[in-house]
């Protein structure tokens, strides 16, 4: 057993030792994560910051010439960068609430105690497991204007062929559909775990008091779930900001540039345009933006946590 009572001679020394062992044991929890991340992430992040202020020499992939804020100026004055941010913003504004609501809703629905519950829960994970590239391709097949099943079914009820990939609004809808399809199971997974770990006695007490399901939901379940909802939201938000492989596999950023989300833009500038220094600058700008927004969310959730 680590830490705890030390029976050393001299009370002051033993108190200092105890406190030291206590601090070590406290930090011990944080240490493994911190060490691993520092070891692996330190150089890449430093490198990114460094080349964002320089020009990259493709002969060695190391920074060659210091150019100060040039890359940042280029990036921030580039209209395509802002358009990409706008596209990403639209996507997040629709996809996030949809996925959270749908995910938690489905978790509640499936939570009824019955025989098939475990099977349904496990099967529901499947969309999450399908590789984004396969998912994009699959939905491209289903939504194809010429051969897709969806247009065929819509045609049976008289709705004309919808150009899911050629129309700007529908293209965004397609991306949101595919993303929601893949990620709602994640939210459901977390929500289910949350529901399962709720203490039963609180519910029993509420039932004895005669509360119906709506009251229980609002005043008992939700407050207890707040930390979990908040955690799921933050995790999902960070994941959604990084999304680009679904777009790559389905709409390619099109039509035109209607679904050109920011990560796809950075990826293409780097790997196609070979503009690594500028995409590093873009990455830092995105990092700062994400930090600010996440900070706002975190403060909001802490507020909620303290209320409940």
């Amino acid at each position: 057993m680590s830490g705890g009572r030390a029976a050393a001679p001299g009370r002051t020394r033993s108190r200092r030792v105890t406190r030291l062992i206590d601090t070590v044991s406290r930090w011990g929890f944080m240490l493994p994560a911190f060490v691993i991340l520092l070891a692996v992430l330190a150089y890449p992040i430093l490198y990114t910051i460094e080349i964002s202020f320089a020009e990259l020499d493709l002969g060695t992939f190391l920074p060659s010439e210091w150019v100060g804020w040039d890359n940042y100026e280029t990036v921030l004055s580039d209209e395509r960068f802002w358009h990409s941010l706008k596209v990403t913003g639209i996507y997040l504004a629709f996809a996030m609430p949809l996925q959270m609501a749908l995910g938690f809703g489905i978790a509640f629905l499936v939570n009824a105690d019955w025989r098939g519950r475990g099977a349904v829960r496990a099967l529901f994970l499947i969309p999450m497991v399908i590789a984004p590239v396969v998912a994009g391709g699959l939905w491209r097949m289903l939504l194809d204007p010429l051969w897709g099943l969806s247009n065929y079914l819509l045609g049976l009820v008289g709705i004309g062929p919808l150009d899911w990939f050629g129309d700007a609004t529908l293209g965004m809808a397609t991306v949101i559909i595919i993303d929601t399809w893949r990620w709602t199971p994640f939210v459901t997974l977390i929500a289910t775990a949350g529901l399962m770990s709720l203490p039963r006695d609180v519910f029993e007490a509420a039932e004895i008091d005669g509360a119906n399901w709506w009251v229980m939901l609002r005043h008992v379940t939700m407050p207890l779930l707040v930390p979990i909802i908040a955690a799921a939201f933050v995790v999902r938000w960070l994941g959604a900001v990084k999304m680009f492989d679904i777009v790559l596999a389905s709409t390619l950023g099109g039509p035109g540039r209607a679904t050109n989300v920011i990560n796809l833009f950075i990826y293409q500038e780097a790997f196609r345009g070979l503009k690594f220094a500028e995409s590093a600058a873009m990455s830092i700008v995105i990092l700062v933006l994400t930090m600010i927004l996440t900070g706002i969310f975190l403060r909001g959730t802490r507020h909620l946590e303290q209320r409940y």
Partner: protein
Amino acid sequence: MSAGNPRRRRAIGRQVRIWSGVVVCALFLFPVFWMVLTSFKLQRDIFTSPPTLFFTPTIQTYTTYLKFADVPGRILNTVIVSVGAGLVSIVAGAMAGYALARVKLRGATTIGVLILLSRGVPPIALAVPLFLVARNLELTDKHITLILAYCTFLIPYVMWLMRGFFLSLPRELEESATIDGCSRFGAFFRIIVPISLPGLISTFIFSVILAWEELLFALVLTSRNAVTVPVAVAGIAADMITGVNWGALCAVGTITVLPVVVFALAVQKWLIKGLADGATKG
């Protein structure tokens, strides 16, 4: 009002709930069904107008193509890497999450927030320097490199999720344990972990899945021996010579879905059993 009515209403409500859950699940799974169906179609039957449910099935995609593209080997690589990364991150992340939730530590919150915010860096920016480091250390194309690379994004997620779970546990648990003379680590491993098993398992599943489907780092850091399934799929999906082999794409998709579903089903059973045990302990 007779006593039967509210009970019958609740019973009907329960039925509605169950059936709507099943319907939603079926809707979500329809594309998967379509994927499995397509994996048995010949190339020329996949894009007929109108789409067909009836066709001459073929298992050629599975037998010839998958052997040709060394898919079983890729699946093995992906299993090694994702389970490895999942294990490392669940241990490190859960401990860190606990530190954030319960342990009073100056600066821990700042570190925790910084770790979380490291997720704000687009992975594209990290891929090239990670490759340079791995190349200099002669660690390219190795499983351990991928595992460590994946930990960079798994640990923050695990940490934050587990923090949420730990926060929702009643404080009395540790307090009663420390009164009994347990050390902090002891209380954590003996009391907290068993109680938060649903959260731990779900987060572990989530980490394994995230690592399973990761594409960018795998593309950049592997070339031959440690190639994972997403890289193989990306190759199929971008074939510019014969055209995208949709049958193969769906076949690979089907095959990679199976192990995870089996894994989740097995884990669910254990989860429910563990929960039942936990409930009786009260």
